[in-house]
């Protein structure tokens, strides 16, 4: 808004320039470098890095685990957001503040903490082990770590949307004869669905990129509990920059496709709603 009212920050030209520079320096250029590096790799080396059985297994774990963790967060994030948004109880504020903890902790610390609790002789792990459930050093542990670090995204996106669904809407539906389940399905979920999808996307993206907390609890057994980012680190430690870049490119491309799909889905949903009305 060049000709708009004066604002606190200097004019449009300067801020847009800064925005472009910042995005370029911090996001676009490194990504371009990654793509270039991957592209300059000899083909057989590229295929070796990208399509090796070990790499394929790591994709399965990284993408599958992130997807599963995001799904878990979608459900439980909704429940947590619902509790915080709808009820007034002692300790609510404290609980609300706790949601953000996984944001603040260095991820390695959460990894160590999770391992301490869930390893075979940990606080919970020893009882779970009795039941035959092993969390640490299994794929289950990977999903657990991914769920933990993605949870705040799911809660924090749904919470404001739920606050916006006024109590009156539920009351109105009730006086019109709708039961609780009907109100939930037909009134509440449609109203917060866009926010839930956003939360899902963010939680998924975060889980996919997570490294620190996962490597502690996963045990990093090749072909079993090895995530793609770790595989890249291994390549780097062997000074195989091209291999690492190739894997990075695969991840970049795959997450781009997934995020694009979700965004298109969202847009399509909005569009369909509007077109049906027109």
């Amino acid at each position, binding site marked *: 808004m060049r000709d708009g009212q004066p604002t606190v920050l200097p004019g449009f030209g300067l801020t847009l320039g800064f925005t472009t520079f910042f995005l370029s320096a911090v996001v676009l250029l490194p990504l371009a470098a990654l793509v270039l590096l991957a592209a300059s790799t000899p083909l057989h080396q590229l295929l070796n890095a990208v399509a090796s059985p070990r790499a394929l297994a790591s994709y399965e774990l990284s993408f599958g685990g992130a997807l599963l963790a995001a799904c878990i967060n979608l459900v439980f994030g909704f429940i947590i957001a619902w509790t915080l948004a709808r009820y007034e109880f002692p300790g609510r504020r404290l609980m609300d503040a706790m949601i953000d903890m996984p944001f603040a902790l260095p991820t390695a610390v959460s990894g160590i903490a999770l391992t301490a609790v869930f390893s075979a002789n940990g606080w919970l792990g020893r009882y779970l082990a009795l039941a035959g459930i092993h969390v640490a050093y299994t794929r289950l542990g990977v999903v657990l770590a991914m769920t933990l670090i993605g949870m705040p995204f799911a809660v924090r996106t749904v919470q404001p949307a739920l606050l916006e669904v*006024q109590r*009156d*809407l539920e*009351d*109105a*539906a*009730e*006086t*019109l*004869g*709708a*039961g609780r389940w*009907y109100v939930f399905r*037909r*009134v509440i979920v*449609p*109203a917060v669905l866009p926010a839930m999808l956003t939360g899902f996307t963010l939680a998924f993206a975060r889980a996919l990129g997570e490294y620190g907390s996962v490597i502690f609890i996963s045990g990093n057994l090749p072909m079993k509990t090895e995530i793609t980012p770790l595989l890249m680190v291994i390549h780097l430690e062997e000074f195989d920059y091209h291999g690492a870049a190739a894997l990075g490119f695969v991840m970049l491309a795959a997450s781009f496709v997934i995020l694009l799909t979700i965004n298109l889905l969202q847009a399509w949903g909005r569009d369909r*709603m*509007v077109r*049906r*009305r*027109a």
Partner: protein
Amino acid sequence: MSITLDQLTKRYQGVPVVNDVSLEIGDGEFFVLLGPSGSGKSTLLRAIAGLSGLDHGRIALHGRDVTHVSARRRGVGLVFQNYALFRHMTVAENIEFALRVRRMRAAQRRSRRQELLRLVALEGMDERLPGQLSGGQQQRVAVARALAHKPEVLLLDEPFGALDAKIREGLRRTIREVQRELGITTILVTHDQEEAFAMADRIGVMNFGRLLECGRPQDLYTHPATRFVATFLGAANLILARQSADGPRWGAWPPAMAGAGPGAAAREREVVAVVRPEEIQMARSRDELSSSAYLGRGVVEEVLFTGALERARIRLDEAPEAPILAHANGEGAVLLEATRAQFEQRAFTLTPGQSVTVGVRRAHVLATPLSSFTVCASNGSAVARLAGHPLLLDLSSRMKTRIRRHVEPLLGDATPIRDAATSLPGTSVIAAHENVVSDANWLLDHGVEEILILPEHAPSPQRVLIHWTDESARHATLAVSASVLRHLSAEAIYVDVLPDQTHATVRSSGIRALLDARSEARTAHGLEIRTELRFGVAAQALAQRLDEAPGQMLILGTSGAGRLSGELAALLAQPRWPVLLVHREREAPAHSRSAA
């Protein structure tokens, strides 16, 4: 009866937000619940809809007890202030919501929807989303949606609150037309008296969770029973007057009357008269006051042109015989409010600073026995301290009345009465100290009929206990109780005490007395009270009951020519709770007072 409410009570954190409300609404009636925000009217509406539970009471719709029926099975339609439309659904889907829930066939749904859209004048809007409609149109959709399942009762919660004046007007008319066409019993909640007048068959005014008065708009406007209704329904001047045999008389207290002592039948009482601003006439001199009674002289403070009407505020001269306004109009200065039509303005032009003669065309005397407060103590500093008592300030500001100050050096003097002419207007207020009984007796000797005794630390009471020692004080005590309780959010309990060794037949008559008291409170004063029967010595039982919980107050009725003595004096000696003593001469028959 379409809607019958029986003693509904809903408490929030111990405070009653709906306080013993009983009401009957007839078939096809348009009933408006009017009250300031926080008066409990919306809570009451939600309770009728089944959306909030009750602590006490019963609700019946068309003779069917629905107290424990869930909102979804009550068959009511509810319209909200913020429309509460489902924003992701079209107008058609919104309206058909209730029909879809009931699994009605698509074809039937469509025809019902068309019918409703025609009713609210929104034909052809079926496929719009709520976001694409104006506020007024959205509220029309909400009305249609609420009517879709053919509810027995339509409830509207401030439906025009979010709309601007022009749109309001049109929507009001639509709702009234729809209501008439369907003949559906309707309750509308609002805080806007103009809206209430425009729409209601009958209005119920609420304050502090109580339903104060019900009636046709014009009756409530011209003959309000309470000062809250008088001042809430349009502007009103409350003027302290003396009630004499031939109507209210203006002028300051005490009346210049010789020999008006206690027991004199012709003694004048202080009353509160309601004078609407449009009933005030202004002229140059007393001779020019055509059709009105002379009130006094004053100076015009302010003249406002508001279109059809002119609003003037007048400061009355402080002459000895000048009338006294009961309430301060907000900012402390007590000014008389007047409105004049165009023809009056042409006949006599007002300018600020001008001196005018003021007349009253019509005045309505309120039935309330509590007119004003007079703080009494034997020295000036004690009077000042008592006049600043939080409970007294609270009560007087809620009652929109004055606190006078009176230093009485002889207060509490036990020597028999000599100077009968000293009479204090209104309710006397004294502090609870060790000699409080002799103070009270002195006041009773001097013709005071209501005495408020205040302990130093008395919070605003949450519960008021009512008791009278003698049946001949019943009527007056109930009238005073009703007047006090209208201004407090407290529950009222009538406590009757029977001697310990009571025969069964006497017990049943005691229970009958409780029921009588309750029905008199309801029919004569519109006050809902709870009742309790206790056994033992009256004063001890009352003291025990008052000590059970903090935040209680006692209204105690006594009668007879005698002074306070014996167990009653013991109860009142340095009370730890506020006590309002209501005293009536035994020879005064109750019915003469009911005319006041």
